[in-house]
Structure formats: C-alpha cells, structure tokens
C-alpha cells in the first residue's frame, strides 16, 4: 500500500498516565460509528479465520471433485484447480494470513517505537544513525524489498515476517520520533531528569505512555498494510507454498479459471478486503478520537 498516512497524525499532548489515557482513547474511538463498523468487520473475518478450521466440512488438501466443479451438494462453493473443496480451503486459509501479518506488525511497530523513542530522546549521533539507516530501508518500496529477499533466499515464512516487519520499522520510527520530540520539551520530563530518574525509566515511564495514541494509530495502519503485503506476497506465489490453504495462495492458484469458478477467488479476496477495510476503519476512528482528546474535546 501507499506510504502517506491516510489519517491525521495525532499530536501528543498533555501528560497522562498510560492506562487512563489509553482507556480514554479507546472509549472515545468507540463512540464513533466507523470504529464500531470496523470492529464488526474485523471480528467477522477473525471469527472465520479462527473458527473456520473447526467448521470446515473437508480437509483442505482432500480431493473431493473434478477440478473447477461448480457448486454442488455438500460443496456450496465448488472445487478448486485440483478438485479440493473451496469452502474448506477458505475456512482453513485465514489463520496464516492473520498470524504472519500480526507477527510482522508486532516486530515492525515494536522495534520502530523503541528506535523512535530512543532517537527522539537521545538525539545526536544516535538519532542521525537511526534515521539515515531508515532512509535506506525507505528507498525500497515495501513490496519490492520483500520480493528481493524472498526471491533469492526462497519463500521462507520467517523471512517473510522479518522482511515485512523490517520494512515497517523506519516508518513507525519516524512517526514515534516526531511524537517524542514534542513530549521531550515538556516540564514533567525535565522534572524527572532533574530528580535523577534513569533515562531508560524516563523513556518507558514518561515518554512511551505519552506517545501511545500516535502509536495506537500507527499500529492499526501498519496492521492494515501488513495484511495487504502478506496476502499480496501469497498472491505473487512467494508466501505460503502449496498445498497449504492460504487466502493469498488460493487467489494465485485459481485466478486462471476466474471465468468458470469465480468463488475460489472471490471468497479469499472478499475476506482480505473486509479485513483491511475493518482495520482501517478502526485506525481512522482511533486517529479521530486521539485528535479530539488532545484538543480537550470529548464529543
């Protein structure tokens, strides 16, 4: 996906304790209709992915009919390019996309937040090194970077998670650094420094809680992009490998016969679409709520 933030970046504001502030953010976000719609969509797809394997009528790798058969009894969405049940493969195929995207997001946003806070607080040479190294990573479009490594080393799952995660790090670090810079100026940080609180503790106890709304928005945005990237790499054939059931791979395998058997493509495509739209709606809700909070308006 594209790199510009869709959502207004929340400005970090007045000091607050971590727990109280986050609760406020979530509650404010939940008052917006789009956040609730996003939660419903996300929960729906999550439900399919998590409960699907239990409900699937067939094994995802069992051959049940001729390739590309139409819908029939006990096979409401027909069969795929090898004659496997489309519904069963769809129900089994969500966990991989979700798991890989979540892991990549956790790595990317985790390291990005750490580097962003440290760079924003310590400044100086460290800041320069972190941000300029980030520039090199940013010089690759996310997908091309992933393709470069996956194509040479091979479509390994740990590598996929790592590459997608690393491509998020500089983007998150930039946002968190900007947010940190605004907090560092404030008196409570100076007060903590004056009474000799350790730097690590200042970063974890004073700075991190106060950039948490920016971080929450960034987390949602990165998760949306991760889902798109992981599914996209699967679609390009560089994610999960056959015969695994995976939404991205299903689209790749069945797109040649989209005229005769559209379900095998339409089901995974709609699931990915609903999921990304859902997470983005939540992200937008969080962003709007955080701006409201920072202005002191709780609508």
């Amino acid at each position: 996906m594209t790199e510009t933030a869709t959502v207004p970046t929340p400005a970090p504001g007045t000091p607050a304790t971590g727990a109280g502030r986050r609760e406020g953010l979530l509650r404010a976000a939940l008052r917006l209709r789009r956040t609730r719609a996003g939660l419903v969509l996300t929960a729906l797809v999550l439900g399919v992915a998590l409960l699907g394997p239990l409900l699937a009528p067939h094994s995802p790798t069992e051959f049940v009919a001729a390739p590309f058969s139409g819908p029939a009894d006990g096979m409401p969405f027909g069969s795929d390019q090898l004659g496997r049940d489309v519904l069963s493969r769809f129900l089994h195929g969500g966990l991989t996309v979700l798991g890989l995207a979540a892991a990549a997001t956790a790595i990317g946003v985790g390291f990005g937040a750490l580097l962003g806070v440290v760079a924003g607080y310590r400044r100086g040479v460290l800041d320069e090194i972190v941000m300029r190294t980030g520039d090199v990573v940013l010089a690759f479009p996310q997908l091309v970077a992933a393709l470069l490594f996956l194509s040479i080393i091979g479509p390994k799952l740990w590598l996929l998670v790592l590459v997608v995660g690393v491509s998020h790090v500089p983007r998150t670090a930039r946002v968190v650094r900007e947010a940190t810079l605004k907090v560092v100026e404030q008196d409570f940080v100076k007060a903590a420094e004056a009474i000799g609180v350790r730097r690590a503790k200042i970063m974890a106890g004073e700075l991190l809680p106060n950039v948490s709304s920016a971080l929450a928005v960034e987390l949602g945005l990165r998760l949306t992009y991760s889902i798109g990237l992981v599914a996209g790499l699967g679609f390009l054939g560089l994610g999960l490998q056959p015969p695994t059931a995976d939404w991205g791979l299903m689209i790749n395998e069945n797109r040649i016969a989209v005229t005769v058997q559209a379900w095998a493509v339409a089901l995974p495509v709609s699931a990915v679409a609903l999921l990304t739209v859902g997470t983005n709606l939540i992200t937008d809700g969080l962003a709007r709520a955080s701006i409201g909070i920072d202005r002191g308006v709780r609508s």
Partner: protein
Amino acid sequence: MYRLIFKRVLLGLVILWAVSVVVFLATQALPGDAARAILGRDATPERLAALQAQLHTGDPMLVQYGKWLAGTLTFDLGASLANGLPVGQYLAPRVSNSLVLMMIAAVIATPVALAVGAWSALRRDRAVDHATSLITLVLAALPEFVVGIILVLIFATGWLHVLPAVFAAGEGAVWQYPAQLVLPTLTLVLAVSPYIVRMMRAAMVEVLESEYVQQARLKGLPERTVIWRHAVPNAIGPVAQVIALQLAWLAGGVVVIEFLFRYPGIGLALMDAIGNRDLPVIQALSLLIAGLYIVVNLLADIIGLAANPKVRTAAR
C-alpha cells in the same frame, strides 16, 4: 534554499549507493557459490563456469561488488540468464511499457482526485463529503491486487463482459490496445487517488476558512473567482508533495498490477526473473525501481521545500 536542495540531492546519491550495496548483498553475497545456487544441482559444468565468470564469483567479495557496480554504472548489466539477451536490451521495451502505464494513471488520477477533494471540501459535512470520506477510506485500505481482482470480477468475467481480464496484445506498442489498458490503469488510479483526495480536501477546508477567502467573499467577488483564483492555488501547494509521493509509489505498486493483468512491463519482468532465478535481471530491476523511487521522493522533498515560504525566503 539551494543549499538545502543540494544537501538533499547529495543524501539521495548516498542512499542510492547504500541501496546498491543492499541489492548486491541480498543477491550475490549469499553463503556458498551464488552461481551454483542459481543454476541448481544439475547444472552443466560449462553453464556453471560461464555464470561464475559473469558474476565474478572467483573474486573476493569487495572486488565482486566493484566489478558489478562498474558494470551497472556503464549500463553493462550482463546478460539475462533466462534468455541470453543483454539485460539493458531485454528491459528497455518493458521499462517504456511500464512508464506508459504509470503516466496514463498519473495523468488521470491527479486532476480527478484534486477535483473530487476540492468538491468534497466545498460540500463539507454534507452527504457528498461523507460518501467521499468513506469511499476513500475503503479504497485506501484495500491492497491494490484486491482492487484489481474486484474490477476483473465486475468488468471482465463476472457481471459484465466488456473488458479483457488480462493484457493480451500482439506486436507493437502497448498504447495501440486501449481496451486492454483500461483495467490496469483504473486499478492504479484507484490505488493512488484516495490519498490525494483526502489531502486536497483537508487543504481546501483549511484554505476556505482562511481570512483571505473570507475577505474575497466579503468583497463581493463571484464564488467562482473566489474558488479558482484564491482558494485552489493556495490549497494545491501542500498537496503537490502527496501527489509526488503517490507517483513514487507507482514504481513499486506497478509490480503486482502487471503480474495480475500480465502486462508486459518491469513488474511482470521482475516476477518472471524471480521465477527463473534470473539474477542479473532481478538486480537491475530492484536497483531501477529503488532508483526511480528515490528520485521521485527527492522531487517531492524539493517541491515541499519550494512550497514552504519560510524555507524559500530564509537562506538565500
């Protein structure tokens, strides 16, 4: 301002060099013999020797990199392992095909997105505005291949059968087959527009609330003049940077779209090269795409600097 631009260009060059190191390390500096890794176990000794010579795998790593970089800088990119053609000759028509696709998408997306964004701002908080906001939010979330497949399902295979699902032109230039170009272009347009629309709307809302627009209205100027002479020109400045960033995104986004529509450009060439483990082509394309991305981002930065009056007037 010129010093700032000079510094940015210099930084861009350093980044480009760093990118070349990354591409080299990711492709050629694998543990073991890169030539053997590419050709597989059952390679004939002749092919292996030829590839080892082309990749200079006998040399130490630093010398290998030097020779590769020297080759790249002189546009001597080696020969494709899949078809034996020189990489430059193999890629030239594909690069121009991709540029055609990206250009058409950019030329359509930019004015349409600006118009929709401005219109949305003028109808602020009315139904049109809310609809635009929701549609752009949804489009921004969808991965581009999902948009492409939905378009294929609607226009090519599912409901309507009006457009081809894949690019299947014969000989000649791609623009001789306009019907084939519609879906790939439309997908790219839908992928880049939402960000421009949202940015333009935000900029216009701010400008419309400004005192000079208020003044123009109080002066009794016709609304048309207020919008076209006073509001739009002031709103476009900050949006220009977002437009440039979206165009930079096209360099990478085109890969999936070309793969989906089998459009004969750099993206499809990259996917083919990955399938064939065609190392010289992968190296050249990664470098090319990253280079394009860096250059357009650099332009975006310079536009941003030029559009910022503080910077423009400060350090002369």
